[in-house]
């Protein structure tokens, strides 16, 4: 009973637009069969769409399935119902940002740091973006994992140390006005 209430509270309104996107899903499993990342997912894509339609918000946003989409668009092209599945995954990601879902926190922070760098400078500064990511993750071991690649890139002179710096970038107003417009439909 309590679960049902919670689901109603979390699910109905939020998942509505995503449910509209996958309403006519026939559960054929073409998405699962096409997904290169399904082997690592706790629920298959097919199951995930069923969960969306059944309003199973709790389990949905605890699962890693949608955050493991690598946006290859294979399911979108193959879906026999022509459903915009990759766009629906993006809609779920946007919901998980608003819900501050923990399971995909790292990939959301990754994208957030990327956007922060382009908001500041107009174009991404790859090293600054990664430094922002390391700082946001607060995991001192994380840079170690990137060290071998960083070393290769530095030897080629392709990346250099960039201390993150703030500046009024060319995209500042566009970011600001887009956010304002989305809040007020």
């Amino acid at each position: 009973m309590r679960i049902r209430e919670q689901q109603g509270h979390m699910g109905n309104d939020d998942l509505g637009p995503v449910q509209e996107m996958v309403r006519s899903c026939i559960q054929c499993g073409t998405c699962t069969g096409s997904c290169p990342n399904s082997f690592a997912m706790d629920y298959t894509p097919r199951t995930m769409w069923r969960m969306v339609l059944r309003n199973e918000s709790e389990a949905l946003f605890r699962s890693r399935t949608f955050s493991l989409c690598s946006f290859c668009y294979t399911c979108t092209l193959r879906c026999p119902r022509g459903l915009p599945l990759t766009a629906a995954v993006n809609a779920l990601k946007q919901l998980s940002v608003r819900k501050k879902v923990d399971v995909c926190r790292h990939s959301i922070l990754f994208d957030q740091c990327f956007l922060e760098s382009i908001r500041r400078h107009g174009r991404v500064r790859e090293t600054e973006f990664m430094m922002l990511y390391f700082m946001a993750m607060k995991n001192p071991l994380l840079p170690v994992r990137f060290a071998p690649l960083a070393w290769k890139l530095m030897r080629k002179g392709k990346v250099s140390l960039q201390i993150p710096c703030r500046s009024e970038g060319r995209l500042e107003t566009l970011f600001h006005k887009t956010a304002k417009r989305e809040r007020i439909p």
Partner: protein
Amino acid sequence: MKYLYYPGCSLEGTAREYDRATRALMTALEIPLMEIADWTCCGAGAGETFSHLLSLALPARNLALAEAMAETDQVLSPCSACYVNLKKTETVVREDPATFDTLRALLAEEGLLFQGNMHVHHLLDVLSRDVEIKKIQGLVKNPLAGWVVAPYYGCRCLRPFPVFDDPESPRSMESLIQATGAHVLPWNMGGKCCGASHMNTDPEVAEVLTDAILAAARGAHVIVTVCPMCQLNLEGYQEKLSRRRGSDLRISILYLPQLLGWALGMSVEALGMNLNLSVRNPLRLSVMKGKKEHCLTNVAETLS
């Protein structure tokens, strides 16, 4: 045909050799490129995580800047991620008038007029459809006879917009590769995903995908790519993946315009081939014999 050129952020950074080779090749093919003045990031995959509107507004700004140049209505992007974002925005103009109006209003506040009349092309689209294959054949000075090349397309130049190739069985690179005198490796991994930015956030997942591509390329001397992210995933982790698999997965990874430029006799510097992370001398290859040897040796020296 001339094109307005949108290089994208990667081509100024970790993929600068892709930019260099693209410009060099297009010059040789007499296809003028005009870089879009003051272009900004397309948002890559990150825009859409936070806002659908932002993910369209960022590319739309660049299309509006392209329009303002009043040179042509054709845009070329070598980066598959940029290409999809720009193409998505082009599609919205046609199919979603309400969103188009919102984008116009947003950009008007920036002092930009967005008319939505640009046509966006991937570099591979232009090379495979806009260039006569005979023209390339005629320009080849350094035939790549004996080379076996694995064409790797990745995802986003094929999907979700099946514009110039069959996303299920892509072949658009084959005639280009054959024009250089090289053989095409028969394989079915050309359109499979490399894991994209999961290599940063969920490496244990992306490594499985990249490993499968590298393993399937056995028998080839080179994998060619048309996307900075595919390139980095395929070239940046070969030692690590080889150790894990217990067998040697190392192989040269070149951008397609580098391979073509090389066949056209361009220098290592002109094509940025000294910047690639994985050039396992195509030069020491046992198949390379005879008169090709001297130019191959030259590369080996420059690269080492």
